[in-house]
């Protein structure tokens, strides 16, 4: 049977995703598809209270239930020194609560039984007596001097976690004082949740005879998880085998270690049997990591001609009960300092104070690179307010203040060196696609008729690809990534990487990079990820880092293979090494293109016909430490019509022009953008993990936390500009998160633009119809 082949030189082509052949047939192997012999199931007992003292835990009835094998409490774990675990942010988090609970749905006990139903039944029989305590759900209240202190375990007797600042405070204040115009807004980015289709879970399978733990887990970062587990549980790292099978979406939710993981591992070691824990949708939304939850006050100054002069941002961040944010060590507020965005600010200052509250811990980067969405939303909303205050067109204001394409590499006032960009070209393309000037004319006509039509622009700059080892680490581990390539005698390749895709298409796109470098087709390259016993060490897939880091590693590992191949080719061609040329598909003798050998021929020779003294085989590994981050950017334009009867903002059109540098696979990029825009649409209009004053989570399921389907999602119109990253091996920047980062502001700006005749400059997202309708009602313009 002939092997299926794709065309050579695959980089930049819309090759169908290799992984889809199994995924669309329902033949993926996700965590809950795995059933091991003698496997038991774990269910967690969770607190109904957001803040309460635990008076007692009675497990007798649960233990007596036939089929229940083990009931674990915090006291049991304390004997193993596992009642608490470290978080990625350097804080610690209760695994199972002992003295008190700090958020609703906190893990209190674990029940392990023959079936999942029995485990749930057993959990219902655990009787916990609570003594409720005062609840704090607002981080601004948490930082007041008389607020109840939530964390008894800390010596510090308040709820303050950290203060972080960047930039020139005094110079910024002075520049603002001297500015002709200053706009001030309080911008809220509410708590949201990534809500991947597949929730989190694991199977812990401890082999007592071998002393080895095999841990199947829904992980975006298998190696990091293995290291954390070795540190938490004291198990030898080489005897922990982490397998991350097919993962049904992550978006940051599957980066941290959760209490259910630790409980399952303790259960498996205790019982000598595999233990599976898979959370429910409610458990996922209420207890595993949230995103955002920033309260931001901004002051943006400009001169009388509209040139921006200064930016000052003061932020209170809600981190929940434990600081479990997944940020690099050096950046407790992530990369929020990208907040000056695409604009040439002479000076700027930003500060963040983080607080504990009685809410679930987290602060992960939901499809954004470490607080970049918050920053992007803030600056794009503030620029909109400045345009309104100046009475100028928001597109013109942006053109006026963009960092010029001739300014790159550009040093921002908050410390970043942007690699490349052409913001004016990107915005021009978006405006052309949507016929912006005609829309403004139409808007004027509709306004004259009393209609509310809005046009919103967002011209964001992202910062991704963490990261350079001099400044980026997680728990001290530098944020490089890796690729190992093995070329077999027939010219077929297995490539293993330290990343772990969850739908991004790595099996195709990384194959395209390697095939491009080696003159092969993507069908010749099998990409494997997610197995720590086989893949080289890497920090995983999140924060749009895979292509900037592992993608670079793949290209450079392939070039190492090619370098050895060149020597073998010289041997086969009977010329010296420096007389061998590479045309992208073949090695040939300089000046004699017809005298050539393919990579397949070279591969066979690597095992059968080597130059004298050469080590056999054709393999290479590269650990890529990027010299800088990458800075994808884009220009988005949304058009909305507001229904005066219901308050609904109907998205009529949405144009997204992205610049992610070199494009590996346009179809995959397109898919990434469609998904991210749909998430951004949801964040802008329908999603919030809200709480009542008692700390009850009001969005614990998909009837309250809404996820748009194709029915609700607007039609996306997309295009690209290409400004390669000058320092990345193939010029790629990463794109997965740009649409989520850039689009919420475009939607919100469109609604504010529509409501601007009423004097409205800011409404908190999500922009529920009732919220807009209330504004219309207050101004007497409802129908």
């Amino acid at each position, binding site marked *: 049977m002939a092997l299926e082949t794709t065309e050579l030189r695959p980089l930049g082509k819309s090759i169908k995703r290799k992984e889809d052949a199994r995924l669309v047939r329902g033949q993926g192997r996700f965590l809950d598809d795995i059933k091991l012999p003698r496997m038991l199931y774990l269910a967690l007992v*969770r607190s*109904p209270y*957001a803040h309460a003292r635990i008076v007692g835990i009675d497990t007798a009835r649960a233990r007596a239930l036939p089929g229940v094998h083990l009931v674990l409490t915090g006291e049991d774990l304390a004997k193993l020194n596992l009642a608490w675990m470290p978080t990625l942010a350097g804080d610690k988090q209760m695994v199972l609560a002992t003295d008190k609970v700090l958020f*609703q749905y906190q893990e209190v006990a674990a029940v392990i039984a023959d079936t999942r139903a029995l485990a749930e039944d057993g959990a219902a029989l655990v009787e916990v007596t609570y003594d*409720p305590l005062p609840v704090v759900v607002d981080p601004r209240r948490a930082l007041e001097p008389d607020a109840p202190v939530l964390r008894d375990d800390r010596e510090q007797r308040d709820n303050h976690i950290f203060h972080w600042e960047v930039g020139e405070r005094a110079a910024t204040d002075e520049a603002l004082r001297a500015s002709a115009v200053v706009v001030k807004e309080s911008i809220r980015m509410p708590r949201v949740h990534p809500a991947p289709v597949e929730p989190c879970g694991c199977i812990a399978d401890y082999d007592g005879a071998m002393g080895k733990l095999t841990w199947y887990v829904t992980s975006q970062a298998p190696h990091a998880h293995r290291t954390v587990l070795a540190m938490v549980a004291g198990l030898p790292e080489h005897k922990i085998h982490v397998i991350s099978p097919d993962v049904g979406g992550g978006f940051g939710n599957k980066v941290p270690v959760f209490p259910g993981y630790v409980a399952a591992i303790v259960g498996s070691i205790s019982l000598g049997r595999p233990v599976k824990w898979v959370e429910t949708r*409610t458990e996922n939304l209420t207890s595993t990591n949230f995103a955002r939850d920033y309260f931001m006050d901004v002051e943006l100054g400009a001169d009388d001609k509209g040139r921006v002069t200064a930016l000052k941002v003061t932020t209170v961040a809600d981190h929940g009960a434990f600081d479990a944010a997944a940020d690099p060590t050096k950046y407790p507020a992530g990369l929020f300092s990208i907040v000056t965005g695409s604009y040439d600010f002479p000076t700027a200052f930003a500060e963040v104070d983080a607080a504990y509250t009685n809410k679930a811990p987290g602060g992960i980067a939901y499809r954004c690179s470490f607080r970049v969405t918050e920053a992007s939303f803030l600056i794009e909303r503030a620029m909109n307010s400045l345009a309104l205050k100046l009475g100028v067109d928001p597109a013109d204001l942006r053109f006026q203040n963009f960092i010029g394409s001739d300014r790159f590499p550009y040093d921002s006032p908050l410390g970043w060196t942007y690699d490349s960009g052409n913001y004016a070209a990107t915005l021009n393309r978006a405006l052309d696609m949507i016929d912006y000037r005609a829309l403004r004319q139409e808007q004027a006509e509709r306004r004259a008729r009393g209609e509310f039509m809005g046009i919103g622009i967002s011209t964001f700059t992202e910062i991704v690809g963490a990261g350079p080892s001099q400044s980026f680490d997680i728990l001290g581990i530098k944020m490089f990534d890796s690729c190992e390539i093995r070329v077999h005698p027939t010219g077929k390749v297995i490539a293993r990487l330290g990343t772990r895709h969850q739908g991004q298409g790595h099996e195709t796109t990384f194959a395209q990079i390697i095939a491009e470098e080696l003159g092969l087709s993507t069908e010749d390259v099998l990409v494997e990820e997610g197995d720590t016993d086989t893949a080289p060490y890497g920090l995983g897939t999140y924060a749009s880092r895979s292509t900037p880091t592992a993608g670079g590693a793949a290209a450079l590992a392939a070039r190492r293979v090619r370098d050895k191949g060149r020597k073998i080719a010289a041997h086969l061609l009977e010329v010296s090494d420096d007389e061998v040329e590479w045309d992208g598909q073949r090695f040939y003798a300089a000046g004699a293109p017809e005298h050539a050998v393919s990579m397949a021929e070279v591969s066979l020779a690597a095992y059968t016909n080597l130059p004298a003294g050469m080590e056999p085989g054709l393999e290479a590994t590269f650990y890529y430490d990027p010299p800088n981050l990458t800075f994808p950017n884009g220009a988005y334009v949304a058009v909305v019509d507001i229904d005066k009867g219901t308050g609904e903002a109907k998205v009529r059109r949405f144009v997204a022009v992205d610049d992610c540098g070199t494009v590996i696979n346009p179809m995959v990029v397109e898919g990434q953008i469609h998904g991210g825009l749909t998430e951004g649409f949801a964040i802008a209009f329908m999603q919030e993990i809200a709480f009542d004053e008692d*700390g009850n*989570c009001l969005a614990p399921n998909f009837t*309250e936390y809404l996820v748009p389907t194709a029915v609700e999602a607007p039609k996306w119109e997309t295009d690209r500009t290409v400004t390669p990253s000058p320092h990345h091996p193939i010029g790629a920047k990463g794109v997965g998160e740009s649409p989520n980062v850039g689009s919420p502001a475009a939607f919100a700006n469109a609604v504010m633009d529509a409501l601007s005749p009423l004097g409205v400059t800011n409404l908190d997202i999500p922009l529920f119809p009732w919220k807009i309708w209330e504004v219309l009602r207050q101004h007497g313009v409802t129908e």
Partner: protein
Amino acid sequence: MHTYTGTLALEAPLERVYRFITAAADVGPCMPDVASVDVKDDTHFQARVRVGVGPVRGSFDLSAAIVPDGEGKSAALEVRGGGMGSGVDIASELQLAEVAPGSTELRWEARVTISGPLAALGARLIDGQAKRITAQLFDNIEARIRQLSEGGPREVEG
């Protein structure tokens, strides 16, 4: 937290009403949708009640404590418990006043806190349901006192 208030006009002497609302054996059976009552002592009882809010159906195990003021004019009723992974706390104040010989006014205020999935699942229903259940407790107390005054049967509405 939800706060509910109400006033009952009872055709019974203040002393009798006071004795009733401070006796666990009398108040316990007045719990709405009660399945069982276990009177622990004069002022403490435990009850299992059926609960249904929206799609959530199940039972709550409640512990109740009555705190008389000792002066025959007021009492506190504190109820705490839960079930189905949810919790409920009810802190009630009951104030009595004689409006005429043999007639007593009972003013009540209940602060109800519901925690857990029940609070969220029934977020749009919980206020009405909590108000109904709380009011039912006092309606049952009123009915029971009226029955006793009339020498009627001991049962009250569930």
